[in-house]
Structures are given as structure tokens and as C-alpha cells.
């Protein structure tokens, strides 16, 4: 088999990623090449279960939820949403400044939050607002005037025209920009995208806000202020290097503290991909895609610009039923069922509630034991 690594530089390699589930993309791709969203979703989910570097996929999913865009608004008459995915994989552990400078004129983002429709004369506040509210600083740390000022300062980006088919990012047109000074986060002057980003990064709200995003996705729904502040200080001093931050998080005493054990609910994708990997099943991307829709997590289709919710919002009568049904469906696709004799040690850390123990003791065969493991409350948590 050809190497199954999605490459950021060579888009067509997506076709070679996995013959069974590659999105049908032509060898030569322009910014006006249509894509098939179902194939793209299947390709990524397939890759999540197979990649030799799963942490890169987990980070890509994190960024997809953070700097989110959805294919419905972005459209599929361009590879923009696919390119955005390649960007997050390539920059998975990058520095925040580079990411912000990349996401602002990203073709999918330009469409998704209307920055492409914003000009100095008629600024559109959509991107400016979410840049501050959701992407960097958090609500309450800036004013409505800052939003208006940022909207002016960021104006100037446009989508490529038909005569620019090879452009993979937005094009800055000074005639669309706002030439006069504005006051943004207390600084007055003529801003451009770079100085807007640098002003945001110089603000005290940014590092704690970002750290909190990571902690609530990887460690605990309610990190203490002291934990956040400690990590945020090092994050800022590392020039917002997310690799440093992730290392700090995973080596922090809090990460292995007893009260952080199973403090988070797995998202549907976490849940299904971890089940597929536990089974060693490589043919489940179709089932995962189908149940992703049922469970409320479709790739490239977040419910809002805030990405996907966390925690308790994933659990309802409907989703518990459908998580169990996913397990039944996934086990049904197996030609041979691997032994489940040690599954509770390997996948539930041998820390089981009485109900799970009871069902494991009742289970007569491997399929039933796997069902008990994957449908258990322990496996819904991380």
C-alpha cells in the first residue's frame, strides 16, 4: 500500500491515502475544484483510525473545533475546507501567531466568517468579533468598539478571482483596506492584520483563554485559576508555542491527579475512533461517519462558530442509545472478533463500576464482552 500519510504540500496524495476511502480529488487541484464532502469526511475518519501519528489527528480535530468552519457555508465548489484541514494538521503543534496569520486569510475562513465581504468602507464585523470572542481572548476582555476597530483594521482580504486559480489563500487588496488610524485594545494607530494579531497576543487575556480551551478539551471541565495561570505564563513566555504548552499540560501533576481521572466525556469522534482502534478495525470509517451524524459530530459541519460543545451536552437519552447502537454496528462489521479477555484492563484501566463488572460477568462471548466494555460509562469518559 502507498504511504497513508495525508500531505499538506501535495494535495493529490489524499487520493493515495487509502484507496478504499479517499476523497475523489483530481490530480491537479485549483481553488475552484469541487470536492465531495462525504468522501472528505470518510477520508479523515479513516485516517484517524489508521494514522501512525494519532496525536496529530487529535490536535487537528481540536483546531478544527477551535478555528472552525463548516462546509455548508464555505461550500464544496472549492477545496477550501479540505485545505484548511491540511493546514491544521501541518500546524498542529505550531505557534499561535503563525496560526492566526494563517487562519485570517484562509479561504474557508474568509467565506465562513465573511471577512472576504468586509471592506474599509463597509466593514463586516463577523470575523473580527469571533477572532476576539472565540479564537483568542474570550468575551468580556474587549469592548464593542474594539470589535468595530478590528473589523476596519482587518478589512482588505478578498477571495481569489477566476483569473487566479492557483491561489490557495486570500489576497490582500490595499484598496479594500481601511487607511485611517483606529483605536484597538487601547492602542491608536494604523493597523493591519499582523499588528492586530500582535496586539491580541500582547493582551493579558489571550494566554489564559487559550490555555483554558486546551484544558477543558484534554484534562478537566473546570480547571483551577492557578493551574490556568501557571500554564498561561509559560505559554506566553514560549511565544505561544503549543508544543511547549501540550508538553507542560501532559507532564503537569494535575494531569495525573486522581480527581482528573475520567473528568471529561469523550466526544462522539473520540468515542468511536477509540473503539475502532481498540478493536484494530480499519474498515469502520463509514459506520463512524453515519453515527457521527446521529450523535451530533459531523466533520466539517460543526453546529456553530463555537465548534462543538464539551462535556455533558454530549449525553442525552438519544445519544446514549445511539452510542450503544454504534457499538452493535461496529461489532457487526467484524469478520473475526478479537479476544476481549483483557479488554477491561487495556481499555478501562481495570477501574470499573459495579454495573460494568456485572455485565462482563454475564457476557458469554467476546462480542458481548466488547459490547460491555465500549457501551460502559467508563469508556464514554477520558
Amino acid at each position: 500500500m502507498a504511504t497513508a500519510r495525508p500531505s499538506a504540500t501535495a494535495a493529490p496524495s489524499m487520493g493515495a491515502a487509502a484507496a478504499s476511502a479517499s476523497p475523489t480529488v483530481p490530480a491537479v487541484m485549483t481553488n475552484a475544484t469541487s470536492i465531495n464532502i462525504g468522501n472528505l469526511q470518510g477520508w479523515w475518519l479513516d485516517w484517524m483510525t489508521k494514522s501512525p501519528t494519532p496525536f496529530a489527528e487529535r490536535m487537528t480535530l481540536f483546531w478544527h473545533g477551535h478555528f472552525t468552519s463548516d462546509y455548508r457555508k464555505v461550500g464544496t465548489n472549492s477545496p477550501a475546507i479540505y485545505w484548511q484541514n491540511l493546514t491544521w494538521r501541518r500546524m498542529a503543534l505550531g505557534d499561535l501567531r503563525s496560526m492566526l496569520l494563517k487562519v485570517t486569510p484562509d479561504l474557508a475562513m474568509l467565506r465562513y466568517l465573511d471577512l472576504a465581504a468586509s471592506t474599509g468602507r463597509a466593514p463586516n464585523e463577523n470575523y473580527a468579533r469571533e477572532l476576539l470572542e472565540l479564537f483568542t481572548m474570550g468575551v468580556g476582555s474587549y469592548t464593542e468598539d474594539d470589535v468595530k476597530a478590528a473589523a476596519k483594521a482587518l478589512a482588505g482580504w478578498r477571495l481569489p478571482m477566476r483569473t487566479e486559480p492557483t491561489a490557495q489563500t486570500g489576497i490582500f487588496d490595499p484598496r479594500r483596506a481601511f487607511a485611517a488610524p483606529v483605536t484597538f485594545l487601547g492602542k491608536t494607530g494604523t493597523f493591519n492584520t499582523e499588528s492586530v494579531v500582535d496586539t491580541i497576543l500582547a493582551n493579558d487575556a489571550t494566554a489564559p483563554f487559550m490555555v483554558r480551551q486546551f484544558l477543558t478539551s484534554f484534562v478537566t471541565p473546570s480547571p483551577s485559576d492557578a493551574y490556568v495561570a501557571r500554564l498561561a505564563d509559560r505559554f506566553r513566555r514560549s511565544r505561544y508555542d503549543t508544543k511547549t504548552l501540550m508538553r507542560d499540560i501532559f507532564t503537569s501533576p494535575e494531569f495525573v491527579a486522581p480527581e482528573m481521572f475520567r473528568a471529561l466525556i469523550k466526544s462522539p469522534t473520540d468515542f468511536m475512533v477509540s473503539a475502532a482502534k481498540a478493536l484494530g478495525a480499519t474498515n469502520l470509517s463509514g459506520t463512524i461517519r453515519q453515527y457521527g451524524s446521529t450523535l451530533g459530530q459531523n466533520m466539517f459541519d460543526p453546529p456553530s462558530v463555537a465548534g462543538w460543545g464539551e462535556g455533558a451536552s454530549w449525553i442525552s437519552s438519544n445519544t446514549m442509545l445511539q452510542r450503544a447502537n454504534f457499538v452493535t454496528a461496529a461489532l457487526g462489521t467484524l469478520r473475526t472478533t478479537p479476544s476481549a479477555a483483557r479488554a477491561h484492563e487495556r481499555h478501562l484501566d481495570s477501574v470499573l463500576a459495579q454495573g460494568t463488572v456485572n455485565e462482563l460477568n454475564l457476557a458469554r462471548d467476546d462480542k458481548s464482552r466488547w459490547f460491555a466494555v465500549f457501551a460502559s460509562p467508563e469508556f464514554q469518559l477520558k
Partner: protein
Amino acid sequence: MGATDLSRLSRRDFLKNGFVFGAGAAGLAAGYAAVPDVFARAVYGGKLDGVMNDRVLVMIQLAGGADGLQTVIPLQDPKLRALRPQLSQAANTALPLDASFGLNRSMRGVKALWDQGKVAIVHGVGYPQPNYSHFDSIRIWETGDPLRRQQDGWLGKTIAANYDSAGHPLVGCACGSSEVPGALRDLDATLSVINGQNTFKFNGADAERAMGVIYNGTPGIYGALFDTSVFSARDTMARLRLAREKYTPRAAYNDNVNLVYSSRNQLAAALQLAAQLIISGVGAKILHVTLGGFDTHDQQLARLDSLMGYVDGAISAFHADLAAYGMSDRVLIATWSEFGRRAAETANGGTDHGAAAPMFLIGDTVKGGFYGEAPSLGALDRGGSLKYSVDFRQVYQEILESHLRVDSQEVLGKAFERIPAVRTA
């Protein structure tokens, strides 16, 4: 069991699999709760003595920002033609309601209900300082809070404050959805979400039994949430079985419609499920359904006509079904959308995000007619949107006080001027 070095195991899992992020649990025994049981309190906190009446509310969300001027169409205003050279054609085919306004030509069923005095149209519904973001404005409508400070949905709060949802999970139900809509969300309320009644079941012969064994006294901060959700799923399955036996539709529901483009068509199926839950008496009080596709930035004339035809057909069937079972006097239908659309059309025959738009209240308890003041096409706001004359919370208040007969201030935080669109006696 228990002899393994758990922190080492978890770390190895994490490094190898990426997706397993369980922190080590060294030193913790099987009952691993170590944090206050907030969710347990939340889930079981429903009221024991709920409001006792047989009123039911069905909210229909028209997601994407439904245009008002092509739904309740000004017939006499020459400014409509000036603002909307293409879209104003809709006035020529409108179904006249009075001398000034006509209904979208596709809404024959609603027009028939209007003629029977069962439709209230509230003009110009919005809120101060309109927000043009879908997400923000949806959240504003869902929480009933233009300042975006509230987390809980207004319907969720209503359930938590008034009904015993812990024992009766169908009190609040999202029909035709896979997740809890924001309007129904409240940690103090137990809710059901039924995507499709045929798919709401455990697949596999043994799954329901096994889930009952597994989810029984689950420890941990999410234990009660899990157990309640599984209990609620099994309980809902049983009630749906009962409901299927007691109900056969007495009206023609049809999702086989051609929309210009849209996501899944299941509004009629969702309303049929709502009818089934109401008619079979399984305890449904507040139901929510959603239809998307209203973000008509282009081709609005054809798109909105087809969408409104779809909405009209589904509502007509729903009302006829309830009436055939003698239950239409209990049920109020209300439509909502995050905002209306800009007064002027765009070059490609669409409209951008706007502000005020009309709301429909439909049912036997409604006092038919127009309410509120229609926004003037000659006095738009700075952005070119229609100015609101009725705060959406005035309509919420009327729904809560006059139809459901519950305390609206507990949900909305304060009292608003009344829009008397629902009969109180």
C-alpha cells in the same frame, strides 16, 4: 484486577493511541467518585408537584433567518417594489389577509386556519440592538436574553420550574433532532431527543438488557447523568411502543417535497411524531422541531416559496391530525427564527441578514388577527433592516402565561407589555 500500574498504562495508551486521554488513576478504587456530585443534583432536581393542565406547546424553528417580507407581504406599499425589484413579485400572488397584507402564495393551509380565526400574526418581532450573527441571535432567542448572559434555554427553564421531568422524560422533547436544542437545554430538566421514532431503539437483541445492567448506580460526577439518560432512553422506547399502538395518523404528512436546496426533509415526520406523543398521552408538554434552509442569500423568490409551502403542508397536517382526535384545543404552535432579512434585495435575488420579522401563533386557543405594528419600509435602521416593534419576549410571555399558564417571570426575569394573542378563558 487492580494490580496494574494504572498511571503507566494510561500514559502508554495516550502516547500510542492519541485518543485515550484518561489520566492515571493510581490509588482510586472501583467507586471512583472524588468530586462533588453536581450532576446528580441537577438531573434529579425536577419538581414533584408540577403544573397540572393539559396544554401543549410546539415550537417550530425556521433556522437561518426567515424573511418576513416574502411571508407576510405588504400589498400596498410602493417602497417594496423599489427595495426589492425581483422579490416584490410575491405581492402579486399573495393570499390577501386584509387590505394591507397578504400571505405567501404557498401558505394555503395557514390561510384556511386564518379564515377560521386560529392564526395570530405578530408583526415586527425582534429585540434592541439587533445581532446579525446566526449563532448569537439563535442563542439570544433560545435563552430569551439579548445580553447573551444566560446559558439555559427558555423552554428548559420552563420545564425545570414547572414539571416533573425526572419521572417523565417526554415532558420536553426535541422531535427529529439528534441533540438537545438550545431552547430546551437546562441542567435541571430531563429531556428526550427523538431523531426518528423508527430509529429510537436499541439495535441488537441483547443491548437494552445489557444497558440496563451496566447503567445502574454508576459512580462519578457524570454517573447520574448517564443513568438518567439510559433510563430515559428505555422509558421513552417503552412509551413510544405504547404510543404506536394508540395512534394512527388521521392526516396526510408529506416530506416528499422538492426544495431548491436544503438539508434533510423531515419536518412533517417530526410533527407527526409530535402528534403521536400528544395524542397517545405519554406526557409531552413542550416539543421542539427545526427546519433549516432559510438563509436565503440568493434565489430567495423560489427558495422561500418552496420552504413556506413545506412548512404550510406540515403544519396543516399536524393541526388536522390533532383536530381529528379532538385535541387541537390543547396545542399551540409557534414559529420562530433568529432574525428576519434585510429590506433591500441583493443583486442575485437574495437578501442579507436582517432584524425584525413576524411570528405565527397557530391553534384553537389563539385569538386570530394581527398584533404589533408592522415595521415601516420607509424607516429602516442604519443597516437597512426593519425595526422591531414587539420584543420577542413579549410573545414568549404570552405563550407561557396565557397558553401554558405558568409563571413567565421565573423564566424571563421580568414582566413585559402583553400581546394578547391567546385566549385566557
